[in-house]
């Protein structure tokens, strides 16, 4: 039988390695470090159609992630989708007339919200709403529009 000192050493090494592996999974593989946006504030936007947007999707400005979507709800007075997002507290000076649009990363990628800055001097505060929004592109609608336009072109030419 192995003696007590080296047995304890091995077990200690084993436990330390296990905890280290878990920490590596949490910080290097997972997104524990960037998961929580520090002292964020909430802003919301209404969209006619959110497409495949999901909770926790990224909110970006100039391609940089500045927050994430915290809730998606249906507003049954305006028949629109109400998207609430948490924006990092470091970015307080987003102009009030900025526009929010739902974009897709890559051809098959996730959908996210891109914010285009406006020119207003006043900035968005917690609880404010984006006035100008652009909905997600729905492929079926796009195809329908193309067919409709083609039909419109050929009709008066007879």
């Amino acid at each position, binding site marked *: 039988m192995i003696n007590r000192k080296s047995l304890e050493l091995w077990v200690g090494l084993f436990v330390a390695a296990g905890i280290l592996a878990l920490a590596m999974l*949490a910080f290097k593989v*997972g997104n524990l470090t960037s998961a929580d946006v520090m002292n964020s504030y909430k802003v919301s936007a209404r969209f006619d159609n959110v497409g495949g947007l999901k909770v926790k999707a990224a909110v970006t400005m100039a391609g940089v992630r500045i927050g994430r979507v915290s809730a998606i709800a249906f507003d049954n007075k305006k028949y629109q989708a109400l998207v609430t997002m948490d924006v990092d507290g470091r970015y307080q000076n987003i102009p009030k007339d900025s526009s929010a649009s739902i974009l897709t990363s890559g051809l098959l990628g996730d959908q996210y919200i891109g914010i285009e800055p406006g020119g207003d001097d006043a900035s968005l505060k917690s609880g404010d709403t984006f006035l100008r929004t652009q909905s997600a592109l729905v492929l079926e609608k796009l195809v329908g529009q193309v067919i409709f336009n083609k039909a419109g072109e050929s009709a008066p030419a007879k």
Partner: protein
Amino acid sequence: MNTLRILGRIAINSVERLGRAAMFLYEVMLGSWELVRRFYLVVQQVYALGVLTLLIILVSGLFVGMVLGLQGYNTLVKFGSANSLGLLVALSLVRELGPVVTALLFAGRAGSALTAEIGLMKATEQLAGMEMMAVNPITRVIAPRFLGGVLALPLLTALFSAIGVMGGHLVGVGLLGVDAGAFWSQMQNGVDFHDDIMNGVIKSMVFGVVVSWISVFEGYDAVPTSEGVASATNRTVVYSSLAVLGLDFILTALTLGEV
């Protein structure tokens, strides 16, 4: 008539055995409280069940990760999304393969050894001898082994998943030329700490309890002959594997069902 009677006997026997196993688990849990003062007994078992299983876990983890890297790359490259290789490797390891393969290997390597050891102690009447000396064999022999297994399996699973990701990185980035930055960033974007990693940790804890429980119970319940110990060891591996695979489905359905 006779067939019905045999069916009835099988049913009664298995329910009775299940009941005994549950009572046994309760006794082991009670015995575990007394081990707080004699923790060295548990440390010894963590060495026997954890440290000595390390080699097989690390080697299999590395190869599972490498195979995932190769297979995943060949499929993903058809869709032009080879950059998601890191995400694929990490998610399949952390959520499924890590806990399940580790538990299966653990049942084969450590669980069978546990059953054989306890069964042999029973066959050579060491357990009865302890009772003669007013030493409770459950506190002295069974509970440390049970606790050792429960503690060792989650740690082994974390090591398996971590080294598997390394293996996937080795093949994907080193051999197949996936961009290292894309490999890690896709992984970090897609793997959630609570939903994916904690899910795997919870699975491994459940598997640890179940595999250790089956192993010590089969040993303690073995017929005290050499054939009895052999068939008990056999049952440990079979039942543990079935329990792990069945529970894995249930746990996955439970965690995915909430979405």
